């Protein structure tokens, strides 16, 4: 239905046109640009590791806006994109998914955690990123590991989360799943704050007053910075600060801004496998191209999305949507960048093998401390006093 009779007949073979669609302006610009870096590096790195990458990348900017995301997706497809990759944000991704599905163009979501997107019955939509429940499940599991390894078992915890789409998805998942995990602590207070908050002093004062030993934050970058700063000012030192799977603590800006105060904070999050050879290649190339920028998960997942598309193209030897989608569904990449099992998609198009790691900020950069088989450094707890830091 709905296709125009005079539409150009699409080329069935040849170069794979990948439409990369991210929020590169507007309030999510920072993250969209990080994703874009992973995409831009991909063809070169893939060639280097011997994967034929006959691709052309077409870029589009969603302006952090759902309507625009949808229109840009239409435009990319109209201009001949064979695969779409994007879009960091759940709302925008959901809008793009519909367009892709309708036009029969495979869409690989690199980052976006709202579980509903892969529950809506799409045939052309794939996601190489965990859903919020997956994130939380992994996050809680790793927590137990952290307690065990450090020998510190908190009795009380405060859960603080940003009240946006992502924060609420995470809060929902924690509420639903925590009972099943037999956690040693009790959540004595849940504090949610507005994503546009410019000041978290009240929130921290409130949290401090509970005397909790564990702080579990679900943040974005800016509020993560605000939060830690406020903790320093109010001299609140819980034994452990550990994010169950949210951005913020491991981002470049976080380290730049907070310096020594960024250290020892923990995040359980899907991450690149530092032991993987492919990761090293990508990392080298990244450092060369973007001096001073931090290599993090958005870059990794975006790179992998291109890899999936490229390998599917190589396998299908076609750029036709259905053939590509079939090939993507059959994806099975054991050696890749992100930690976890082989890169595969289930019937709903969800990669279920992604595994989180525990990151700890040490020397002002994120280091994998758990699981031990890929750990880069040792876990250091409890959180040292703010004022005594050198």
């Amino acid at each position, binding site marked *: 239905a709905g296709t125009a009779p005079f539409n150009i007949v699409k080329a069935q073979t040849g170069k794979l046109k990948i439409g990369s669609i991210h929020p*590169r*302006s*507007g*309030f999510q*610009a*920072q993250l969209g*640009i990080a994703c874009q870096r992973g995409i831009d590096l991909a063809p070169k790195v893939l060639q280097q590791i011997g994967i034929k990458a006959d691709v052309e990348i077409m870029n589009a900017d969603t302006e952090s806006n759902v309507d625009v995301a949808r229109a840009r997706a239409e435009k990319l497809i109209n201009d001949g994109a064979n695969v779409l990759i994007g879009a960091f944000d759940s709302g925008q991704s959901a809008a793009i998914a519909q367009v892709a599905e309708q036009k029969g163009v495979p869409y690989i979501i690199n980052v976006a955690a709202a579980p509903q997107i892969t529950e809506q019955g799409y045939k052309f939509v794939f996601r190489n990123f965990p859903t919020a429940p997956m994130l939380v499940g992994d996050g809680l599991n790793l927590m137990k590991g952290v307690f065990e390894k450090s020998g510190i078992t908190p009795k009380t915890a405060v859960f603080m989360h940003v*009240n946006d789409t992502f924060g609420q998805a995470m809060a929902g998942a924690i509420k639903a799943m925590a009972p099943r995990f037999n956690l040693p602590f009790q959540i004595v207070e849940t*504090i*949610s*704050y*507005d994503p*546009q*908050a*410019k*000041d978290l*002093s*009240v*929130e921290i*004062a*409130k949290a401090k*007053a509970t005397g909790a030993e564990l702080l579990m934050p679900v943040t974005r*970058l*800016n509020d993560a*910075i*605000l939060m830690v*700063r406020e903790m*320093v*000012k*109010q*001299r609140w030192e819980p034994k452990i600060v550990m994010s169950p799977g949210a951005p913020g603590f491991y981002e470049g*800006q976080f380290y730049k*801004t907070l*310096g020594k*105060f960024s250290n020892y904070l923990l995040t359980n999050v899907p991450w690149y496998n530092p032991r993987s050879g492919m990761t090293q290649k990508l990392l080298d190339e990244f450092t060369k191209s973007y001096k001073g920028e931090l290599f993090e998960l958005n870059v990794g997942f975006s790179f992998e999305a291109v890899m999936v598309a490229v390998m599917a193209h190589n396998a299908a030897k076609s750029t036709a949507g259905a053939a590509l989608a079939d090939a993507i569904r059959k994806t099975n990449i054991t050696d890749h960048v992100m930690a976890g099992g082989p890169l595969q998609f289930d019937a709903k198009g969800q990669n279920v093998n992604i595994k989180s790691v525990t990151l700890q900020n040490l020397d002002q950069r994120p280091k994998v401390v758990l699981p031990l088989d890929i750990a880069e450094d040792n876990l250091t707890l409890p959180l040292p006093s703010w004022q005594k830091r050198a």
Partner: protein
Amino acid sequence: MPADLILTVAVQGILTGLVYGLMALGLSVIFGVVRVVNFAHGEMMTIASYAAIVAFSAWNIDPLISMIPIAVLLFALGYAMQSVLINPFINRPEHSQFILLAAVAIIMVNGLLMIFGPDARNVLVDYALDSIEVGPLLIDKVRVITAVLALVITSGLFAFFKLSRTGKAIRACADNHLGALVIGLNIKHLYALTFGIGSAIVGAAGAMMTLLIDTTPNIGPVFTLQAFVIVIIGGLGSMPGALLGGVLIGLSEAMSGLFFAPSAKTMFGVAILILVLLFRPQGLLGRKA
């Protein structure tokens, strides 16, 4: 709930509120005279913040000092904006002015985005994370400094408008455009001056703000909205009103954050706004038109 917690939060709320008030003051001054609602208010403040950040990162100048040249810079920007862009719009309908300034805001945001990129930037002075202990209370040092400065600037401005010749002439212009022409006031200059003064205040506030929060090109609208809320609560055009409004908002946000859901605290500010508009539309300290 422990009393010292409540007290700490209240004090913090009031201090923050004073800085909010200063920020809103710029909007109020401009509206009070030029009768133009500056929808690019938050964006101008963002420009000031970036100026402070550049001054700090390039020459290591403390924002509390760079504040002065930045205020001058913003004064020039405001003066120019009024004389070139806004002046032809003085007698146009509100929606037309609104679009003009919305367009200016779009240009500013995206200009900043192009120049500075989307990353959050900030200024880290060595006292940024210090606190002052007052009995059982732990008060943020930066907030105390900025709040005091906000009070000083407001008083200065107040005196200017009430006592100085130019200040009074500006008020006359606001009242009757043609009347001012008839008695030989240089309206264009006075309006531009006002816009400049309002912008200079915004500039000072923006520089200070870098000590409290991180700056991204997109934070403008939030501040614009907040400034509106404050100014309307206090009374558009009333200078003490802006401070009062700021304090009320700061305090109500702090208290509602403490006693209710922090994520809903902006609702309380808006709720106060709605109540004020309904029962005292001219604002708490505003004069009836």
